[in-house]
Every structure is written in C-alpha cells, then in structure tokens.
C-alpha cells in the first residue's frame, strides 16, 4: 500500500470497526488508543521519508494526476498529519481517563476518528475538489461531535457554526467550479502550471480573493470569525483540545498551500490583504479574550488571535516568514490543545471553569499550575518557550519589510495575551476564595495531567530544540514554495490517461 493513503484509511477503518465492537469498554478503548498510536507512528515515518527525499505521491486507481485523484505526502503535509495524529492521541487518552467507559458516549470516539480521516485527507490531497470532499468529511463529523453531548441550552450555539460553515462550503464549491473553468483542471500542480502560463490575468486574483474568503472563514480570520468563540466552549475538554488544535489550522494550512504552491507568487495585493486582516484578527480577538470570564471562552478567543499571527506570516510572504508560519503552526497546535486539556483538568478539580468560582489550584495541585504556566507563557511568547521563536522570526521579517504598524499590532496582541493568561492564573490558581473546594479525592485528574504533561514536554522540546524544528520548518516552507518542484513531483508521476 502506498504510504500516503494510510493516514486517511486508518482512522476511517478504526471508526467503522469500532461501531461493530459494541458498547464502550476496555477492548474498544484499547483499539482506539492502539490505532491512534499507529497513526502517529505512520506520520513520523512519512516525515522521515520526506526528509530522506522520498515524498509519497499516490495516483488513485493508477490514473494520471491530471484526470484522477492524487494524494501528495510532501514534508509540509506529513508534518501536519503528524501534528493531527499527536493531538488525536492526546484527545483519545484524555477521553479514556476523564470518563469511565460507562458514561462515555458510544459515538464520541468513532466520530473523532471520522473527523481525523477528513483532517488528514485535507492535508494530503493534491486537488481542489478532493479538498472540498475532505473538508465536508471533517465538517460533518465535527457538526455531529459538536451536538452529540450538548445539552438543550448549549446546542443553540451549533446553529451559527453550521450556518457559517455551510455558506463557506457553498462558496468553496463555487470557487472549485470557477477554478475548473479558468484552469481546465482542479489538480494543484496542474492549476499552478496553468496559472504560471497566464501571467497578469485579473481572473486569477478574483479567484484568489474568493479562496481567501472561503479559507479565511474556516481559519477564523477577522470579519468572519464570530462563529468560533461561542461554539467551541460547548465542547467537552478533550474534543475542544482537538478542535482548537486542528480545525482552524486546516484553514491556515490550505491558505498556505494555496498562496505558496498553487497561486502565482506575484499577487502582492492578496498578500497585503491577508496581512492586514491578520493584524485586525490578532488585536480584536485578544480583546474578546479579555472580555470573557471562563477558561474555555478565553482560550477560544485566543485561537483566533494566534491565527492572526500565522496569517500575518503568510501575508509577509518571504521564504523565512512562511517557515515561521509552519513553525508557529507546529507550536500552536500542541500548546493550544494542551491548554484546553489543562482547562479540562481544572474543571475536574474545581467542578467549574467559571473564574469567579475557581481557586486554590496552585496550593493543592502545583503540577497542574506548572503545566498551565509553561503553556500559557509559551502562548504569550516568553523565551525560551516555543511561542517566542515563531513570533521572533515573524517580527524580524516584518521589520525587514517595513510593516511597522502590523508588528506593533502583534506586540500589543502578545502583551494582551499575557494579560488574559494571567487572568486565568490569578483566578483559578492563585486566588484562595472561601467556599471553593478542590476535589483532589477525585483520582481522575492524575492520569489526565500525565496526558497534558506529555503535551507540555513536547512543547518544551520545541522551544528548547527550536533550531532543529526551525530547520524542519524551513525545509517544509521551501518545499511548499517550490512550485516547479511540486509540479514535477505530481505531474511527473506518470499513470494512465495522462499526456
């Protein structure tokens, strides 16, 4: 079997088989954990293969990439698959430790696997229509997961999420249709080659702006982000970790893939637009975070603020800033997911995540505090933690290009991030209000904390080994920006019906 297809098929198979395994129990959970671990191993193997110069290209059914479906596991895609597999493993383990198998919803883990199949397919796919299908697999699973365990009150937040994503999907399919009309192919490599052959055509810019709207909505860029911060908090912690880590990052990845690999590099107006939207997203979202008073609400707004940093890196559009974007994505997925999971641990201990009714956590359970602090400071960008390096490179590149206003906005957003993290810290960990009980007797929090601790260790490793991770990001960015290399890789793969 071609390696590129495993990250898509394996979760699909895992979920389907699990549906036949009956009620949640030890066997079924073991199946999910083993599968998640295998998925991670496959992703690491794919990254290794790419580093060794053997990126995998799968021509489905042996058809040439111009007429058939193609999956491409290049370095950037493999890294993203690795991150999604790691986050999914953490989410599965967290679910197992958080609830006994008697209270676990029987559909939660299978749906999670179906969502993973969609996420991984969107990273690996090499054509636009297949990307649409992957998005829909991911979104339908995510709609179902969002409402699966929501109560009568929370479920109302599912409607804005559904409505915005439905409109986004509709525009996506229009974009795909128009791209086919314009380029005569939906293959990324074919589109890239066709776009290079018609320089200065204004229709390409129009199409690019349509894609910016579509993927900006999925990623949560400025005028289109309102659906996110209200819908994510209704998820249970394990799923919120996965959603916050992966779903918006799929949007960022596709935006990166589109601007770097598919569209011509001289669309300066598009890059400017992305950069300014990013600046606005950063500042407005962090102000939203300051206005919230419960952990998941604050963290949900922070996702958006951080999306601003990644989009700013795309908007600056130099090889180094694209590498910084990749680095930032790597850092952000781990940190954001683990912050949501720490929030979940705190909820188990305090029985709420309303900051007014929390407290004593630092005195009673200092390790929860330490893990939170490491990840929160990393999010704000304190050296030597992982968040610092991504921001550092973005700011250096911004200053080099003279985008002073945007850099000022990003620094303000960083300080405000620290402020809202301190708000959680002071209320949940530092304060010692009367009448708030920390339920240490509830032993669930220990294994849950181990899961988060593992994520925090990975994040610390990224920060301390920033040189190595940055080299990896640089290679991934080079690969993504090398349009000719991508075209050679995909269109040169042969297959029947080509020519």
């Amino acid at each position: 079997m071609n390696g590129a297809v495993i990250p898509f098929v394996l979760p699909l198979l895992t979920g389907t088989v699990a549906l036949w395994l009956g009620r949640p129990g030890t066997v079924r959970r073991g199946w999910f954990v083993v599968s998640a671990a295998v998925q991670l191993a496959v992703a690491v193997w794919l990254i290794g293969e790419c580093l060794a110069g053997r990126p995998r290209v799968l021509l489905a059914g042996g058809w040439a990439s111009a007429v058939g479906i193609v999956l491409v596991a290049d370095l950037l895609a493999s890294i993203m698959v690795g991150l999604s597999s790691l986050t999914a493993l953490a989410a599965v383990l967290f679910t197992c430790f958080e609830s006994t198998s008697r209270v676990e919803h029987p559909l939660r883990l299978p749906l999670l696997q179906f969502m993973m199949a969609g996420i991984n397919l969107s990273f690996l796919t090499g054509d636009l229509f297949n990307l649409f299908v992957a998005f829909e697999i991911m979104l339908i699973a995510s709609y179902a997961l969002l409402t699966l365990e929501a109560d009568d009150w929370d479920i109302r937040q599912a409607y804005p999420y559904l409505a915005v994503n439905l409109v986004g999907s509709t525009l996506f399919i229009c974009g795909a249709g128009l791209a086919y009309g314009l380029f005569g192919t939906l293959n990324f490599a074919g589109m890239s080659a066709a776009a290079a052959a018609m320089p200065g055509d204004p229709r390409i810019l129009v199409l690019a702006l349509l894609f910016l709207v579509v993927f900006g909505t999925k990623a949560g860029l400025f005028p289109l982000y309102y659906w996110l911060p209200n819908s994510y908090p209704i998820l249970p912690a394990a799923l919120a970790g996965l959603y916050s880590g992966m779903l918006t990052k799929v949007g960022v990845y596709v935006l990166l893939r589109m601007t770097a690999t598919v569209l011509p590099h001289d669309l300066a107006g598009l890059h400017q637009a992305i950069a300014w939207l990013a600046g606005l997203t950063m500042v407005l979202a962090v102000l939203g975070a300051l206005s919230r008073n419960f952990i998941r609400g604050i963290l949900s707004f922070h996702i958006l603020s951080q999306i601003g940093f990644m989009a700013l890196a795309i908007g600056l559009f130099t090889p180094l800033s694209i590498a910084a974007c990749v680095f930032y994505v790597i850092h952000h997925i781990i940190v954001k997911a683990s912050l949501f999971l720490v929030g979940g641990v705190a909820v188990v201990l305090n029985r709420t995540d309303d900051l007014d009714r929390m407290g004593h956590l630092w005195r009673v359970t200092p390790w929860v505090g330490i893990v939170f602090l490491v990840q929160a400071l990393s999010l704000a960008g304190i050296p030597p933690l992982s968040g610092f390096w991504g921001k550092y490179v973005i700011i250096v590149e911004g200053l080099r290009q003279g985008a002073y206003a945007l850099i000022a906005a990003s620094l303000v957003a960083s300080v405000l991030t620290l402020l809202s993290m301190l708000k959680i810290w002071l209320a949940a960990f530092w304060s010692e209000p009367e009448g708030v009980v920390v339920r240490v007797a509830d032993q669930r929090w220990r294994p849950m904390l181990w899961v988060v601790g593992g994520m925090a260790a990975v994040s610390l490793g990224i920060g301390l080994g920033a040189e190595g991770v940055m080299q990896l990001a640089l290679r991934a960015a080079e690969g993504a920006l090398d349009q000719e290399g991508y075209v050679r890789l995909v269109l040169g793969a042969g297959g029947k019906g080509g020519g």
Partner: protein
Amino acid sequence: MQLETALLIGALFACATWLILQRSFVRILFGFIVLSNAANLVVLSMSGRPDGKAAPIVGEQAGPMVDPLPQALILTAIVIGFGVTAYLVMLLYRLFVDQKTTNLAELYREKEGDE
C-alpha cells in the same frame, strides 16, 4: 445559454441569501437548499456551451462531447449537500423541540434575558 444560466444563478443566490437571513426555521432551511443548488449550477455551467455537443456517453454519437467532469463533481456535491441538509433538518427540529420556537430571534433573545 451562458447568459441565461448566469442570470438564473444570480437569481437563485439572491433568493437563497434573502431566505437565510429570515428568522423562520423553514425559510432558513429552504434558503440553504436553494444555496447549495445555485452552487451546483455554477459548477455545471463550467462545462461550457452545450450547443451542438453530444451528451458525454461513450459510443452513442461521434463528434464533440460536453465536458463530463463538472457533472461528476456536482454529483458528489449533491450527495454531500443531501447529508448536510439532513443534518440541518435534524438540528432545527431538535432546537424546536428543546426551545419550543421556530423563530431564530426568539431562540437567541432568551439567552440575553437570562444572563
């Protein structure tokens, strides 16, 4: 043919937008159905001018055929649209059962009064 299709697509998008911005659940539902069909029509129109071309069936007729790929694409899109519409129906029904209203404005007004 192209112009008429473009006008039809525009009209459908306009209707869909108007319906989605209404408050009644049923109108919103119809809005989304119309919206997805308008998008399918956009893809279909990318086959190009059908004048004088044969249907894309192998062995039926010689001569130029209509580009079959957009038709394959909208087939997939229709199936996906079906699934999502079914989910939307269930979600709106559940909202109606839980909150005893089919009016979006009422649904979200309660929240402000409560908090």
